[in-house]
Every structure is written in C-alpha cells, then in structure tokens.
C-alpha cells in the first residue's frame, strides 16, 4: 500500500505539472462566468442586442470546451501511452516497483483529470443557464444529473478500459515469452471488442456493466501482479 501511495503521489505531481496552464485557464473561465452579472434588458432582447457581452460568454466557453475535450479525449492517451511506450522512465526503473501497479495508479490518477474536465463543462453550462440564451446550445449538453453521470462514466470508466487495451499492447512490447504475448494479444482484442460493443449498442446497463467488469478485472490483476 505504501508503494501505491508513493507512486500515486509522484504520478499526480507529474500530471499537475503537465496541466499547469490548462487548469488555471479552465478555472478563470468558470470564475468569469460565475461572477458575470446578467445585464439589464438581456432577457427581453433575447441576448441579441448586446453582442459584446454575448462574446464574453461564447468566446471563453469555446476555449473551455476545447480544453476540457483535450483533457477527456486526448490527455489520457498522451499521459498513458507516452509513458508506456518506453515503457518506464529511467528514474522509475531505478526505483523497483510493480509495472502493473504503476499502470493502475496512472489510470486512476488520470481519471480524476478526465472527470474534473467533465464536471467543469457542466459547471460552466450551469453558470450560463442564468443567461438562458442560445449561448449554451452549442455545447449540446444540459445540466441535468443523469446526463452528467453518463458523461462521467464515459470519461472515467470508458477511458480506463481503453487504457487496459493500451496496457496489453505495452505488455506485448516488453514481454518476450510467447504465451504471455499471445495471452496479451487475446486480452487486448477482447477488451477492445467488448468496449466497442458496449458503446455501439447504446450501452445501457449491460454496456456499463461490461466496462465495469473489464475495469475491475484490470485493477484486480494489477494489484495482484
């Protein structure tokens, strides 16, 4: 447990450093939209008469959407696959630790960034609801709880399953024993198949369950290895 905590501490610090510009920017947009007062006549004009003010809403929101999508979609892949390709940093190789456990910690740590980005999108949407205008419609999301939970599930659970596939690929790279290679390849294909199937069929409970089982299996295996 001590090793897991220590790895998590440094993995988190590394990722906070990676995102040292992005999160203050996201925070600034949220603060701006939270503090902006609704101007007089805004509701009656439908938000159309004050184009300068409207820009204050849409411009930063677009920036926020781009940054959050980066955090949800791209950053996990960069964060995980970038580290796994080597497979480990020299400094990490020097400190003996379980590779599988480190991978599990990485997925878990990166999940928080994805989940926080989803939460930021919803928070911004919630702040913008005060302006009730079309400003928020480009986000095509509504700030209701089930929708938000679904997004969190996608960002937080679907991602680790993809990471599982990535981990299996990494195993293929640094294992020379053919039975392990073959097992890794089968697991990789199975994980990808189940993951894609779950989301392709519109998910629902069975899709979520498939992802949950795969993710749980991965974490159990990671801790045991």
């Amino acid at each position, binding site marked *: 447990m001590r090793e897991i905590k220590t790895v998590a501490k440094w993995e988190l*610090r590394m990722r906070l*450093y990676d995102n040292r510009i992005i999160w203050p920017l996201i925070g600034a947009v949220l603060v701006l939209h939270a503090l902006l007062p609704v101007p007089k006549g805004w509701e009656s004009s439908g938000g159309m008469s004050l184009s300068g003010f409207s820009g204050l809403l849409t411009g930063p929101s677009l920036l926020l959407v781009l940054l959050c999508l980066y955090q949800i979609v791209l950053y996990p892949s960069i964060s995980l696959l970038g580290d796994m390709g080597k497979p480990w940093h*020299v400094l990490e190789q020097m400190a003996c630790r379980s590779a599988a456990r480190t991978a599990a910690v990485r997925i878990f740590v990166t999940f928080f960034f994805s989940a926080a980005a989803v939460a930021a999108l919803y928070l911004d949407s919630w702040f913008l609801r005060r302006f009730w205008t079309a400003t928020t419609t480009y986000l095509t999301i509504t700030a209701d709880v089930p929708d938000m939970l679904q997004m969190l599930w996608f960002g937080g659970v679907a991602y680790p399953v993809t990471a599982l596939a990535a981990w299996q690929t990494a195993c293929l790279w640094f294992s020379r024993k053919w039975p392990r290679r073959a097992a890794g390849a089968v697991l990789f294909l199975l994980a990808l198949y189940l993951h894609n199937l779950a989301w392709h069929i519109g998910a629902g409970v069975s899709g979520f369950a498939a992802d949950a089982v795969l993710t749980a299996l991965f974490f159990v295996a990671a801790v045991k290895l």
Partner: protein
Amino acid sequence: MTAEHEGILIQIQNVSKGFEGRPVLRHLTVSFPSGRIIGLLGTNGIGKTTLLSVIGGLMEPDEGQVTVTGKSAWLPEPENFYPFFRVRDAIQYYRDFFDDFDACRADQLCREYGLEASQKIARMSRGQKERLCLFLTLCRNVPLYLMDEPAAGFDPRLKRDMVKILLENLREGSTVLVATHLLRDLGELLDTVAILTENGIVLEDADAIRETGKSIEEYYLEVVQ
C-alpha cells in the same frame, strides 16, 4: 579498500544482449570483486552502458544470468529528473522510493556544496546537476554503485571536484563500477580495470598495471589495439 572486504559481488554468466537483431554483449562471463573501484573501459558502442544497465536491472539480458549480492544504486543523468523537480523534490523522491537513502546526509551535502533546496534542477548549471546526482547516489547505503561516464564533458576543476566528492563520501567496503573514457582524470582512483572487447572482458588489477610502469591509459590502448 581492504582485502577483507573482497569477495564476489557481481557474477555474470553467459550473458547476451542485443538490440533489433544487433548483438552487443555476446556470451559474456565475468565476476567482479567487492570493495573495489572498478573502471569499465572499452571503445564507443562496445556495450559498456548495456552491461551496466543489465547489472543494475534496468534491462533484462536476452540470455544468461546476472547475480548481484545486495542492491545497487545507479548514478542518474540530470535528464532523468522530472522537469518540475527542485533539489528538495529529488531528495524527497529518493527518500520515498529507496529505504536505504540517507536524506539527512543528502541535505547536508547539498548545503556544503552550495545547492539550495528550492533550486529548480532544470535551471542549474551542468556541474551543479552532476553534483546533485552524485550526492543522491552516494547517499544510498548499498554495496554497489553503478556510474556511466560521470564527469564526461567537464572542465578540469569540475572533474577534480567529482573525484573529491566520490573519495570523501564513498562508504568503506562498497564497490563502484564506473564506465569511463577519462583515464587521465579517474585512472588514479581505480583498483581494478575491466576492459570490454568484442571477445569478452579483460580484468586486471590496477596496481599490477602501475607496477609495470605503464599508465592505465597505456595498458588500455595495448589491450584494445
């Protein structure tokens, strides 16, 4: 280093290692004694770094067996540190991951040699970074220290500093395996010379070489040619 400490610390049996089909180490068999400073010499690309990595556990040999009695400490390169590291972070990292690390000693050495805890490693001079790497390595209480070309590209004053730090802080009875080309600067330090060639490894007592009236460099050139 006294004879009573001597024994076999590293045993390498029939070790081979190659990269992308190109063999680097071929069926290498050698034993390194304990309690000595061993210079690992050889032409560029002959496999000195590979051999050190295999001994240090950073790489797995393709075949053969490496047995090291006890743990080893690898001298990191400054580029191995995470980009956000300050001096105190590097010390904390070592404290977290290595039970054998003496953090108080590391703090003390840093103060003695003018390294401040808050200094960002990326902004330090090359000499300062190399010093820090040496402190971190020497503050680990292990029987074996592995160093890959320390002080390469240094000015004479920095080289002298490195030798001084090494001599003052090396624990009695410990072994240093150092890959180097700096025979004029580090030659005097060596107790044993190990010359890696295409046909295997030549191990010779440094004092025995000196008694013949040859310098380590002259002996090395003779063997290599």
